[in-house]
């Protein structure tokens, strides 16, 4: 909406407001029994309050339907029959002008209440939360005026000629009764359901949203009381002495909604000063980790998040470098993207109720802009590091699965075929013996022996590539099996249950390499392997009583092991001395 159009609209509203006041004030001079002068204020005060709050909302947040609705309610209250129609206009005989006015009121008089219902359901964003809300509101916009129209036509048109079409007057009044009751029941049903929904949403809302919904919740009290008002005469509540007085004030309490709205506006103006505190804190220097809590405090939204744009990866990430995405439009989260023409720098994610405080959000965002740029560089580094770590882990995993595949191929292929060949040679040998061909039998025996040795070698090769026991039974049995085959006695101690396969594989190959090194180089007499698990880490210690001399900075073997362990997020330490031999300590996270 352009500024000029808005100005014109505002002028029209003010004009109508003045006219409406005149109509309403007329009651001061021409009081009726049903509307004493004092009750006129019931409509006048809430009417003005809504209209003015609506105009303020228009000027501040012209995109929001809340302003339009409040102006509408205000005008409706001033032009209509008041929150609780106290007299039936049907019984009064008046002139044509009076009839026209009554007819107008019948059709449009209650629309302000539908608009109020609409406002309660869409506050504070100004858009419907669910389809049910939308359907209820739209149907009331149709049902209420249409039934008013029907009522007017049936009850007010006094022309006898119409009787020919619509039947005798008594039938018409019966029809009027049914229309009234049906409309009223539907209208009341919508209100009960709508208020229930609003209360339910308020109870489930985040703190930030509750704060912004508070004007609506306060205004629910007069609305419910206003509905209970007509019951006053019907039930035992008459005994309750204060009740009539309460009902007298209730329409005035509707003022809570527009007043609460304006107070919230003023409050957000006041909160601008908290941005000043933020700037002061920033000038004292602030770590990237402190930015998010500081912003959350300034904007009164504990759920606020800061996301940083990573141009190289073309995605948003949080402070830890983990990928995050912006919320979908119309979700319960809203985002403000900060950046320059070159592209975004960061984004603030907050509860969508903060949308109404866009100025506060923008001001706070502008204040932290420079700090966000710095923080982004850090996040970018972290994200890249994360990426590198991930790819290193993928490489190790790929190598491991390749090892498993080779081992399986050897097992299902070469080993199986050689054993089958062994069987054939046995059969041939049996045949040779049966035909007393001892020379052939001897030759075959030699072949069988070589084949058996070949199988032995193939077996230890396959085991070195990837031991099946590691997959089948876990690290502890695999290391025991390693120890069982070692020429130096190995004592295996400790306990370790199954952990993630890639962690088991990493620890296994460290142990295997360490044992091989100890056998080859340490000149020790015994090796101890200890496994244990404590506070989220699984560890293996391999120590020998040899001559020491192992060093992580020398030789590719140990460095390769350290890389392998680091790839799965673990650590490797080497302690080596002439006196105490060598101890390798490897640990990996295990949840």
């Amino acid at each position, binding site marked *: 909406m352009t500024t000029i159009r808005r100005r014109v609209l505002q002028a029209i509203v003010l004009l109508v407001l003045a006219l409406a006041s005149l109509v309403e004030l007329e009651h001061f001079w021409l009081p009726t029994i049903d509307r004493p002068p004092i009750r006129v204020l019931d409509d006048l005060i809430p009417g003005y309050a809504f209209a003015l709050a609506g105009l303020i909302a228009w000027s501040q947040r012209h995109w929001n339907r809340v302003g339009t609705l409040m102006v509408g309610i205000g005008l409706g209250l001033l032009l209509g029959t008041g929150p609780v129609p106290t007299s039936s206009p049907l019984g009064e005989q008046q002139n044509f002008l009076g009839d026209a006015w009554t007819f107008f009121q019948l059709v449009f008089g209650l629309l302000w209440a539908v608009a109020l219902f609409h406002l309660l359901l869409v506050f504070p964003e100004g858009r419907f939360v669910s389809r049910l809300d939308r359907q209820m509101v739209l149907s009331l916009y149709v049902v209420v005026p249409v039934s008013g129209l029907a009522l007017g036509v049936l009850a007010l048109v006094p022309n006898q000629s119409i009787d020919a079409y619509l039947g005798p007057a008594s039938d018409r009044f019966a029809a009027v009764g049914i229309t009234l009751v049906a409309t009223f029941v539907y209208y009341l049903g919508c209100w009960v359901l709508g208020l229930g929904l609003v209360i339910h949403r308020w109870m489930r809302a985040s703190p930030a949203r509750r704060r912004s919904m508070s004007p609506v919740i306060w205004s629910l009290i007069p609305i419910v009381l206003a509905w209970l008002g007509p019951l006053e005469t019907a039930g035992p509540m008459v005994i309750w002495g204060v009740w009539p007085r309460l009902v007298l004030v209730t329409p005035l309490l509707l003022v809570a909604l527009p007043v609460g709205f304006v107070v919230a506006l003023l409050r957000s103006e006041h909160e601008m000063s908290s941005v000043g505190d933020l700037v002061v804190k920033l000038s004292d220097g602030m770590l990237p980790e402190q930015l998010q809590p500081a912003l959350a405090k300034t904007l009164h939204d504990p759920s606020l998040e800061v996301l940083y744009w990573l141009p190289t990866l073309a995605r948003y990430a949080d402070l830890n470098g983990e990928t995050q995405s912006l919320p979908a439009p119309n979700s319960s989260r809203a985002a403000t993207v900060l950046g320059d023409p070159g592209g975004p720098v960061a984004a603030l994610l907050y509860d969508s109720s903060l949308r109404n405080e866009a100025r506060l959000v923008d001001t706070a965002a502008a204040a932290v802009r420079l700090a966000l740029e710095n923080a982004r560089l850090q996040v970018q580094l972290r994200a890249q590091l994360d990426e590198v770590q991930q790819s290193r882990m993928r490489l190790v995993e790929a190598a491991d699965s390749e090892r498993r595949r080779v081992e*399986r191929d050897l*097992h*299902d292929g070469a*080993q*199986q*075929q050689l*054993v*089958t060949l*062994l*069987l*054939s040679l*046995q*059969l041939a040998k*049996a045949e040779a013996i049966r035909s007393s061909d001892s020379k052939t039998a001897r030759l075959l025996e030699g072949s*069988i*022996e070589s*084949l*058996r040795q070949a*199988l*032995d070698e193939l*077996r230890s090769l*396959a*085991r070195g590539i990837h*031991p*099946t*026991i590691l*997959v*089948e*039974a876990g690290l502890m*049995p695999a290391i*025991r*099996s390693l*120890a*069982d*085959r070692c020429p130096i*006695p*190995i*004592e295996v101690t400790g306990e370790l249950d199954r952990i993630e396969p890639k962690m088991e594989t990493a620890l296994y190959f460290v142990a295997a390499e360490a044992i091989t090194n100890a056998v080859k180089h340490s000149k020790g007499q*015994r090796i101890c392997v200890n496994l244990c698990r404590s506070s989220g880490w699984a560890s293996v210690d391999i120590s020998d009583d040899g001559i020491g001399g192992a060093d992580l900075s020398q030789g590719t073997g140990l460095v390769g092991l350290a890389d392998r362990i680091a790839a799965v997020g673990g650590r490797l330490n080497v302690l080596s001395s002439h006196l105490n031999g060598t101890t390798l300590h490897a640990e990996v996270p295990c949840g």
Partner: protein
Amino acid sequence: MIIADDSVLFREGLARVLEGADFVVAGQAGNVDDLDRLLALESVSLVILDIRMPPTQTDEGLLAAKRIRQHYPNIGVLLLSHHVESHHALELLSESPEHVGYLLKDRVSDLDDFIDAVRRVGTGGSAVDPTVVSQLLRRKRSRDLVDELTDRERSVLAQMAEGRSNEAIAKALGISPKTLEAHIGTIYSKLGLEPGGSEHRRVLAVLNYLRSS
């Protein structure tokens, strides 16, 4: 008997070798489901099966062996594998060593030994691969009584752990049954084991001793 292995050539070869030694092969199975079907149909005294079977090629055979032992206590199970692991051996034998065998596939290279093992398992005895026994014997224990055995006593212990009968051990080591019994007595007292019990039972006693640390 039933032979279960996913390689048809190996099954055929093994069947011919065993039939040559006067065994009756009642059926062959390429996977565990076929094996279960055969078991329901045929009445056999022994199942020879590979540890790695389809579909995952990991320990299907081992699980099938445990199942057979549970449902058919009178059918012997001889597990064959390209690798033997003392872990699997102890897991299999610790419940009951009768009717159970666990050998490397390459053991078919010594046909007499292999057929002897098949016969033992088929008649309620045990067969443990020598590799498993020697691995267990090499295990370093904190208070190792095995160190106090003489070499001859250790080879007797190993043969006992493999599941062989007194007769076979005496023949293999070239000693008289009487001398063997004297050796066995010394081993039992040195290791602090309860003497007596059948030849099957003592496999478990010896293995349990070797396993404990």
